[in-house]
């Protein structure tokens, strides 16, 4: 082949194609707006490759349209016995109401507990650890863990809303004794980080445990309560989503 011709051919092949395959398929179905249709037609007049592809797509569609219908192997008429079990069920409106109320109540309890927790934590930090002692260190480590665990989030982004809110993760969210998970972090995100607690952090906790008074126990109870409320709220929300999805599927 003449080098000049070869260069021209390569240049033509490498040039961005003005017509996308999707346009050819839509053109075939008459689904292009007049300006786009004109553009495709002008291109087809000049491009043998696209003409060939369009012809082949047309053949595919024709072949599929001609696909003969397979006869049914039996009748699918419903018998009264089948229908007895399939009789339209009353919509579980009570379930919607109950789950909605449970979710709202748990969210309110969570909010009240959290604000109480934040208020007491701030006061104690000032009183017990003016120089950033154990509680502040704990909070800081939780934030770090949450940030580290956050790196795993893109992989979890594939979860559907239902999977993300299903009751299973909330079981993991049930708090270990100390420290409690950050309320907003995804349960899976912090769960694996718990066993990998650095030894320094454990040491940092000991003085706090030694000095633990009724207030410390109260805070733990508060956090258990927070996590439980969050878990109930998420479980109820998950239940609502499942119900809505089931209803939407028909």
């Amino acid at each position, binding site marked *: 082949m003449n080098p000049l011709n070869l260069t021209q051919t390569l240049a033509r092949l490498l040039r961005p194609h003005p017509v996308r395959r999707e346009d050819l398929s839509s053109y075939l179905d008459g*689904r292009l707006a007049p300006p786009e249709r004109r553009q495709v037609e002008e291109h087809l007049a000049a491009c043998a490759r696209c003409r060939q592809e369009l012809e082949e797509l047309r053949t*595919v569609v024709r072949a599929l349209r001609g696909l003969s219908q397979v006869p049914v192997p039996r009748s699918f008429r419903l018998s009264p016995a089948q229908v007895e079990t399939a009789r339209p069920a009353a919509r579980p409106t009570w379930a919607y109401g109950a789950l909605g109320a449970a979710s709202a109540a748990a969210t309110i309890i969570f909010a009240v507990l959290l604000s109480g927790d934040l208020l007491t934590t701030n006061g104690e930090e000032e009183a017990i650890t003016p120089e950033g002692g154990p509680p502040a260190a704990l909070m800081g480590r939780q934030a770090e863990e949450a940030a580290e665990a956050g790196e795993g989030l893109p992989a979890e982004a594939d979860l559907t809303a239902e999977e993300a809110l299903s009751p299973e993760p909330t079981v993991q969210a049930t708090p270990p004794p100390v420290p409690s998970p950050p309320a907003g972090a995804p349960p899976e995100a912090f769960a694996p980080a718990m066993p990998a607690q650095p030894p320094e952090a454990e040491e940092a906790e000991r003085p706090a445990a030694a000095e633990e008074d009724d207030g410390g126990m109260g805070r733990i109870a508060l956090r258990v309560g927070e996590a439980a409320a969050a878990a109930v709220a998420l479980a109820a929300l998950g239940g609502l989503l499942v119900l809505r999805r089931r209803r939407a599927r028909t």
Partner: protein
Amino acid sequence: MAAPPQEESALVARSQAGDLSAFNELVEAYQGQVYNLCLRMLRSVQAAEDATQEAFLAAYRHIRSFRGGAFRAWLLRIAANACADELRRRRRRPQISLEQASEDQERPLDVPDSGETPEDFALRRELNRTLQAGLTTLPPDQRLAVVLSDVHGLSYDEIAGNTRVSVGTVKSRISRGRERMRRYLAAHRELLPETIRHMK
């Protein structure tokens, strides 16, 4: 054969009032289309039978939620959901689909039409088999879009409503599905009848 629209509306209304015989007339009218959609999606006679029965039961159960429009598209949507459930089950237990595939492989799907010569029948059966094998290579969302569009003749809008995605997504799925089919048939053109064997 589908009933005329007016007759169909009357049958739907009677079904909504709990008249099982009216619903069974709708079953008779559409069981071929529902069964074939399930067969194209699942490629297993047994699974298609189960999904078809499941779809009609679900349709009867929820007939009151049908608010008019194309009954056929509504029914095919329920069938598509039954197929999606089955495909999900298979993903969880892959051995089921393997067992069903080997079980169904030998079962003849096509029967000769009246007046069809044995040669024509053999050609048609071969073409159907190749097309079905090509469809099986498509991802389920593209397969559903192509089957609803090109086999069942649903419009883009009906498919969008059917699969709860935008018309743009439907367009793209159909285009990608057809492109895969084009490549598959081009790669297996020795199995195609003379009329479409020229594909490159």
